[in-house]
């Protein structure tokens, strides 16, 4: 029987340790490959609550925005939550003076327009539409207060529960002075087109809104429409080809900002036109954003805010943008105000002094 020399035994132990170390390194390498591949994934858009961030710069006055069913106030460069997410709040509009606002709360089957105070506390519902019977429910959106603050225009689905599939929005007006008075129907929607939405009240008593239609080739489109009285006296301000909607009147009501879309390309441009109260001037694209939404004029009229993805891109959550002097012959480049938010693009911001 031979006895292994001590030196050989220690060398064997060393080799075993080296082998063990190598196996460990190999396992670590495999794990590293696994984790390394994970780091190559595209980064999901980071989204935070507005109250956890600050805007890139301060805009004057008070801006009310919606994100994930919560209404936020942006004032002096700071966000404050007003109401939500219970109630799924959206589409705020300030009353003249800015001491009160109206907004829409939404459930799975209906929505309600509610009067709130400046701090977001509920004062009273203005247009309630809920019913236990499914087809007796209604949707109501886009509340807009008249310049003198006496009434509110809004879109309301006037479906007949016995008419089966017919559900289209019409623009209604309800008095804020006499809330018990019946609402007045202003517009007659084209059947099975989605109807009439996004009212903007003129100081002369007329109504500007977006009317949807479908042409003979089967293309759905919207036009800005001007109506002087309930039920009639209306006409288009833009062509079907322009496919414009989301009108926003400047404080002097001499300019209209709007969004004009290409449905096939799935892009939407921010455009501005002069307005006489009866006619629109030529439309001008004023922003490089290819997915612009929900423009709102500054109270001073010297600029616009709107919602669009970061970097004027096509993808990603919607951020707040500021466009100074949109009526200038050569408008300035827009500036991105927020980052990492996911603002509700169908909720036009409200902006007061």
């Amino acid at each position, binding site marked *: 029987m031979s006895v292994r020399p001590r030196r050989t035994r220690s060398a064997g132990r060393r080799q075993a340790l080296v082998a063990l170390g190598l196996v460990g390194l190999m396992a670590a390498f495999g794990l590293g490959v*696994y984790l390394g591949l994970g780091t190559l994934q595209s980064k999901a*858009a980071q989204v935070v609550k507005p109250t956890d961030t600050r805007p890139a710069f301060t805009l004057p006055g008070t801006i009310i925005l919606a994100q994930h069913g919560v209404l936020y106030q942006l004032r002096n460069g700071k966000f404050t939550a007003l109401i939500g997410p219970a109630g799924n709040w959206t589409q705020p509009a300030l009353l003249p003076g800015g001491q009160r606002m109206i907004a829409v709360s939404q459930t799975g089957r209906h929505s309600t327009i509610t009067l709130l105070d400046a701090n977001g506390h509920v004062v009273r519902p203005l247009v309630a539409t809920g019913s236990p019977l*499914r087809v007796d429910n209604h949707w109501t*959106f886009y509340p807009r207060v008249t310049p003198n603050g006496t009434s509110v225009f809004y879109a309301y689905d006037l479906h007949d529960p016995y008419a089966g599939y017919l*559900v289209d929005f019409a623009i209604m007006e309800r008095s804020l002075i006499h809330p018990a008075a019946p609402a007045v129907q202003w517009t007659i929607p084209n059947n099975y087109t989605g109807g009439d939405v996004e009212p903007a009240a003129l100081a002369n008593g007329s109504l500007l809104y977006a009317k949807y239609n*479908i042409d003979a080739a*089967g293309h759905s489109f919207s036009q800005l429409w001007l109506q002087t009285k309930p039920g009639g006296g209306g006409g288009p301000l833009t062509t079907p080809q322009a496919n414009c909607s989301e009108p926003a009147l400047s404080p002097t009501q001499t300019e209209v900002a709007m969004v004009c879309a290409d449905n*096939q390309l799935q892009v939407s441009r921010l455009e501005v036109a002069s307005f006489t109260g009866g006619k629109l001037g030529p439309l001008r694209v004023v922003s490089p954003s290819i997915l612009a939404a929900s423009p709102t004029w500054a109270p001073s009229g010297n600029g616009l805010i709107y919602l669009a993805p970061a970097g004027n891109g096509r993808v990603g959550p919607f951020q707040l943008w500021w466009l100074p002097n949109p009526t200038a012959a050569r408008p300035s480049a827009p500036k991105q105000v927020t980052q990492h938010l996911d603002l509700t693009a169908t909720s036009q911001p409200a902006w007061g002094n």
Partner: protein
Amino acid sequence: MRGGDPEAIRPRRRTGLLVLLTVLGFVMSGVGGAVAYFLPVITTALHDTGPLPGALPSPKASAGAHSSPGPTVQIKPLPTGKAGFTVLLLGSDNDPKFVAGHILTQSMILVRVIPATHQVSMLSIPRDLWVPLATGGTAKIDAAYAFGGPAGAIQTVEQDFHVHVDYYAWIGLQGLVGLINKIGGINIVAQMPVLDNYYPADLTGHNPFAYQRICVLPGPQRVPGARALVYARSRHGSLLGDIARNKRQQEVLVDIKAQAKTLGIADIPRIASSLSGEIHTDLGLGQVASLLPLARALGSGSVHQVVMLPPDYTPATIGSQQVLLPNWTAIDGVVRQLFGAP
């Protein structure tokens, strides 16, 4: 001495072998890590991709159609040249209303992809089109899949539209929702307010036959999968019914394509995990992976979208069914323009 001293060579060989084994060990470990990472893809690929299955037997003959053994189609490599390739996209309800495997296709879209020119053409086929089925008989084209499986749907489209289909991809409702959620949601430009008092509540409640009210406001907006599905699936509130839905489905495909530009090969596992059981295709894993760079290369104006409208068909009633009678002369013209001569 030629070959050297054997006593000196042995340790060198041993060292060489050890180095080789070490390198091999690292390579195997790395491959193991990669396999583990792509395991959801492999699982989905094994379950949901592969050769086109034969036609399924019809649960019961109806609407003038009758079941018969279905055709089979061989898998071909993904063409990359100017010739391009054609994929038949199929989408359907697959909730408890239906017998498993015997489902009507709510959506049939022929997609022609020409990688060399980065051009994509989409043609939606109305589900109510009254056509001869490959499995025999005449019925609405949405029954082709129910009676003949993917092979039946492909063969029906090939024989009636005189277009060659290279591949198919079927996706269920939950699959579309999961796909859109996994890519982080999509930005849509809703072409009109979509209001529907009779939208199926089959994915949200306990009764698959129940209805719910839905409302998608018009304009640009960011939507998760469930909301995108509502937009693409609702059909009652529009003058154009199923045609409007076809248009919206094509828009959602354009929106998914835009979002897909942000994805890379490392994103495929998490997407695959969301699709397990909700997608069937004869596109291989490598072929799907090769589509990602193509999606990135496509410009916004490179997708040509077409839906059929009168005079491509005439509405009619057959028995108790509202159907669309095809005008094959007009349809052949559209198909030839988009897909070339048969």
